[in-house]
């Protein structure tokens, strides 16, 4: 404190510029501004936010509220009232979700970094005693729910997936599981969006539901693509994308058309198609115990 005051007084008294810039530097390093800005820039460059100014505003606000509320969960020992805890928990949760929303999951390294940040944030919150091995199961499950609804999934679509990957409240979620859970949810949300587009394409006219036989053909193609044989990841990706290529899909649909002639067959509505597509995905989510 005394030092700070001295340097502050120093700027007022002498007018010479060299002294001023010297004390400026001193002030900045004492206040930790250099470190603060370097961290912010690194985060920005890593996230490559679409709206950099908004990103910096959010980043500094988060930091400020963190430092103002003190280390979360630590503070008053067992004096922490349950209500306060949940408020803090919600703050941490929304901060974690904000980090996760910064980069699309296809931006692998940026996304993984953000998962790490979210994980670190969430391990710090929870009840009075922290769970040693990671994020509390209850918070983890809640976060996955939020991720799904932020991804535009309806409750009913997300529910089967969440049932599959959720944890018990008392469990501790280690990082690897946490990462996979997050990736599964974000990928699932994307997948459902894509399948909705697929249905719209099959239906061809928005006011009429799609033909059942065509939908079946598309879903079968989709299933086949998801069931790629074993082998290296990259090879499987290539194989899958070949199997779901527009040409393949068109062929599958043409085959059905050729067989069924031009009759007005039974139809399938968007909901059913989405559920069927979701089931294909969820069936391939392995549960780790």
């Amino acid at each position, binding site marked *: 404190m005394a030092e700070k005051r001295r340097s*502050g007084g120093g700027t007022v008294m002498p007018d010479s510029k060299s002294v001023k810039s010297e004390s400026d530097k001193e002030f*900045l390093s004492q206040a*930790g501004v250099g470190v603060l*800005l370097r961290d912010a*820039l690194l985060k*920005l460059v890593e996230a490559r936010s679409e*709206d950099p*100014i*908004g990103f910096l505003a959010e980043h*500094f606000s988060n930091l400020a509220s963190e430092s103002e509320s003190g280390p979360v969960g630590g503070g008053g020992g067992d004096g922490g009232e349950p209500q306060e805890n949940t408020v803090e928990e919600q703050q941490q949760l929304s901060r974690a979700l904000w980090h996760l929303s910064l980069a699309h999951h296809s931006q692998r390294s940026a996304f993984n970094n953000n998962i790490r940040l979210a994980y670190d944030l969430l391990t710090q919150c929870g009840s009075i005693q922290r769970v040693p091995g990671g994020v509390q199961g209850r918070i983890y499950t809640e976060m996955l729910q939020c991720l799904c609804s932020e991804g535009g999934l309806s409750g009913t679509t997300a529910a089967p997936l969440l049932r599959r990957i959720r944890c018990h409240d008392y469990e501790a979620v280690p990082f690897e599981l946490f990462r996979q859970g997050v990736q599964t949810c974000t990928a699932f949300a994307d997948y459902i969006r894509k399948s909705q587009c697929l249905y719209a394409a099959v239906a061809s006219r928005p006011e009429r539901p799609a033909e059942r036989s065509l939908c079946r053909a598309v879903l079968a193609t989709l299933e086949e693509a998801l069931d790629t044989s074993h082998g290296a990841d990259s090879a499987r990706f290539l194989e899958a994308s070949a199997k779901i290529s527009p040409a393949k899909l068109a062929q599958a649909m043409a085959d059905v058309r050729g067989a069924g002639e031009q009759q007005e067959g039974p139809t399938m509505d968007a909901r059913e198609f989405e559920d069927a597509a979701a089931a294909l995905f969820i069936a391939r989510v392995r549960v780790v115990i």
Partner: protein
Amino acid sequence: MKMNADRFTLPTDDYLAETNALFYLSDAVTQLLEHREEYTQFGIVRYFAEYFTSVKNGNHVLFREFSYIKATPHNRASFIHIFWKCYRQIGKNGDLLTVLEYSSLLQLLCPDFPAEVVQNTARIVLMDDAMDCLMSLSDFIYSFQIQFYYEEFLESVLVIYEDLLEGKNPNTVIVPTSSSAEPLSSTASEDMDTQEGVDSFVFLECIKGLCERFKHKHPSISAIKEVLEGNPRVSYYSFLMALAKHEGISQDIGALPNRSDLLMDPEMDQELERLVAQVAISPTSNSSSSAAGLKEPPKKASPRKSLHQRRRIEMESDGSTEETDSSEN
């Protein structure tokens, strides 16, 4: 301020350059150093948070120096927006103001706002004629937007325009068209001389070349094309006027609503009445001193006096119109 998806493939330096993030960070540090006592008490991290929140919301340019206001496209748009927010009431009252008065209004928001920009704006509104005429706020503000936001671009357009007027063709690519047009113009040269302006098509081609050099800092080429297509010949100021009136360009800048909505915003009315009252009362008492300290030499001696008289009359009439408004309600 939004960026497109290829930001992930840009090199780091390019990404940062495109975002102006470094500009704002360094300004934030400069401000911090200037007011260190205050901000250290406030909390330095909180200060940075507030700084960037205000940049995001666009109220960071209020009362800042001109060089800052001009520094980024976002700052320019924010300033135009603030100008509109603060003085919309003038337009509502239907008051007409002179160049000098608009200049003073701008200087209330930015103390060193140069009169030159205001004069250039007036040239657009008044088509470079009768410069002491009165202007309505809506005429002024859209022209001001074009002048202030695209200043550098307009300067270069003026150079092109003057070259074309002198018969020089700054764009070598279109020499064939102009040479084929030459025999025509020689026969009709007397008409041409009396006619204002330059050939729109040639002008457009030259501006297209200019836009390539200006990267993003120009109105969209399709809008310029629309503006120029209407008339075979165009003068510099009628071109600028048409740009100012083009709603697409205004939407791209995003600082002002459409002309029809310019004065309508019932939500803001109440708050603004209070704000404008504050702005109108406190700075007019200073303006007698600040007007005396204006950097630019007043072109005529008389407008300055009339400015004060007018201002006083306005204040009174302001009050009276508000009274009549409220009595009507």
